[in-house]
């Protein structure tokens, strides 16, 4: 039973994390690592706290909610 539901539950959990931004930092790190091969960044990646602050400030800069 559990084996049957596990993939669906996993997918739902991943979706929830992504849609809420819970995994935004992990995604950022992955993108950073992928780009690192191409560009050779000078600066190290942002810390979780710094990333989250920047992400949130950017998210609320503009019209983000409607009527």
């Amino acid at each position, binding site marked *: 039973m559990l084996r049957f539901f596990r993939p669906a539950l996993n997918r739902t959990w*991943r*979706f*929830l*994390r*992504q*849609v*809420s*931004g*819970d995994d*935004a*930092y992990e*995604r*950022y790190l992955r*993108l*950073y690592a992928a780009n690192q091969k191409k560009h050779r960044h000078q600066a190290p990646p942002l810390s*979780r*706290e710094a*990333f*989250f*602050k*920047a*992400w*949130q*400030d*950017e*998210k*609320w*800069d*503009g*019209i*983000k*909610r*409607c*009527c």
Partner: protein
Amino acid sequence: MNKTLQLLAWFAVAIVGAAAVGGIALHRGESINALWFIAAAVCIFAIAYRFYAAWIAARVLVVDASRATPAERLDNGRDYVPTNKWVVFGHHFAAIAGPGPLVGPTLAAQFGYLPGTLWILVGAVLGGAVQDMVTLFLSTRRNGRSLGQMAREELGPIGGFAALVGTFTIMVILIAVLGLVVVNAMKHSPWATSTVAATIPIAMIVGIYMRHFRPGRVLEASVLGVVLLLLSVFGGGYIDQHAFLRGLFDHDGLSLAWWVIAYGFAAAILPVWLLLAPRDYLSTFMKLGTIFLLAIAIILLQPEVKMPALTQFIDGTGPIFGGSLFPFVFITIACGAVSGFHALIASGTTPKLIASEADIRMIGYGAMLLESFVAIMAMIAATVLDPGVFFAINSPAGLVGKEAADAVATISSWGFPVTVEQMEILARQMGEATLFARTGGAPSLAVGMASIFGSAFGQHLLALWYHFAIMFEAIFILTTLDAGTRVGRFMLQDMLGNFWPKLGQTSWYPSVLLTSAIVVAGWGYFLYIGVIDPNGGVNILWPLFGISNQMLAAIALSVGTGILIKSGRLKYAWVTALPLSWLVLVTTSAAWEKITSDDVRIGFLAAANDMSAKLAAGLLPPDKAAVAPQLIFNQQLDAALTLFFVVVLWIVILDMLRVSYRSLSGKPVRPMIEAPYVQTQLDSAWVRD
């Protein structure tokens, strides 16, 4: 074979949809089951999405899945990010669906269930969803440009300026009317007031948790917040029973309005992470959860709609707002049918996340259909109430009388029987002292939702369900208020920065304080007037909001029509020109009536003149005479504002026609500024992980 089966299935959907719409349109009995509404909406939306939206995407817009989107080309991991289409759909829907689709249909129910329902269905399919999808497409092709930028670059500086000014004024009116809805739900209700007040520290706790305690753990923090919110609904019940605590939260409308104004200012200058962002998570989760629950409850319970299909108020004498069916039902229900505001989300924000142009139909057209579905549910929740109860909750005291006995006598004389005892029992069940004259839609919707939830999940919890519904509406009204004030501030700083660059710096604190104060004073003024107006304020503010929102929609559709014609697709331009013509007709005639009507409940100037005459003749009681000069000035201001909206609208239309005419007659026009074609490199499997 497979194709034949599909064809048969769609044929069946069409038949069921037609039968459901025919059923609700022609039914003239005591009551009609709400499932008919759900069936009509689901079938019509399915057909519109499968055929009309697909045709627009393929033929009119010619979406190209092989073309790299700005999210792919400009991917920076922050605002430009190619994202799974369901995730973008979630973000886009959470952004466009606010309290509007809940309030508008509730108010429009004064005409009966039919006009509003038909307008929601037709307006969304042919107007609102088309506007959202076309704007989303155009902005995606232009690196996520905003509506104002597109208007400026494709039509000219006049169109751009109109879009900017339109957006700013609509924001001010929107926040004022939403503030009024919250105030009317909280006045002399310690339970509602304390619960709504508790959402502020709860949001802050969540904010601090996400910022410092466990950075970025959005889900954990949201679960914590939702649990605290539910506790605050219980806690409100306790406060309501407590003699001393009750007094702390028992206020009249005016003092609550001042609190809301003070809150708005504080929210605009506090950092986003402390209040706005965490509140938004909470309101989004609450919104999605409650709407889902309401849909389940309606399907399980299949409540009977008791409001007649049409009421006598289609002649314009309605108690909630004055004005006849045409054009006012189309102004009252903006969100849920066509909402110009969506064009601001569909340009600028969402396009930066879209991984493939193939997703545009689902996100642009589909999300609007879902919002429209929410509007249908709000219509159901309002019309399952006894019509007498619905009118008793929503009719302002200035119209039906301050005393309960007068109010029920007036409402019963309209042919909607209701008694004082019935209202008292209902108020007691809902844990309120009174439900009379709670104009604005939130309380009647909450009573409707509470009775639906109560029947489905437990009758003894009615008071809890009622205050849960009030909290649910208040929390995202306050989110819109916070976010709107902040956007107004940014726009004002941007404008003022042209005159004194320092004022344009969004991080310079004196500028932040000054511009926040100006924006809050703007909507605070209309909120204040709305609260002191004995006719309830909603009568004035909601039509003004509707007109301004439809004006913005007309601007967005003008941009779309202009670009379609410029790009040589004249034969398809009717797709946007049709809803545009309708909106121009509706907005202009509504504005005309609001300015010139002799009826004091419709015409702003008629009301101002009437009150001046009464004031001069000494006919007003002292309390009304004291505020009369303010109300007179406000009516004149509203007339001027309405005129301004219509003038802006016509300037944009004429500008669009000028550009189209030049383009068709081969004269030079501004070039299209579409970003050049780049082949997508994106592995769609990567985005969809």
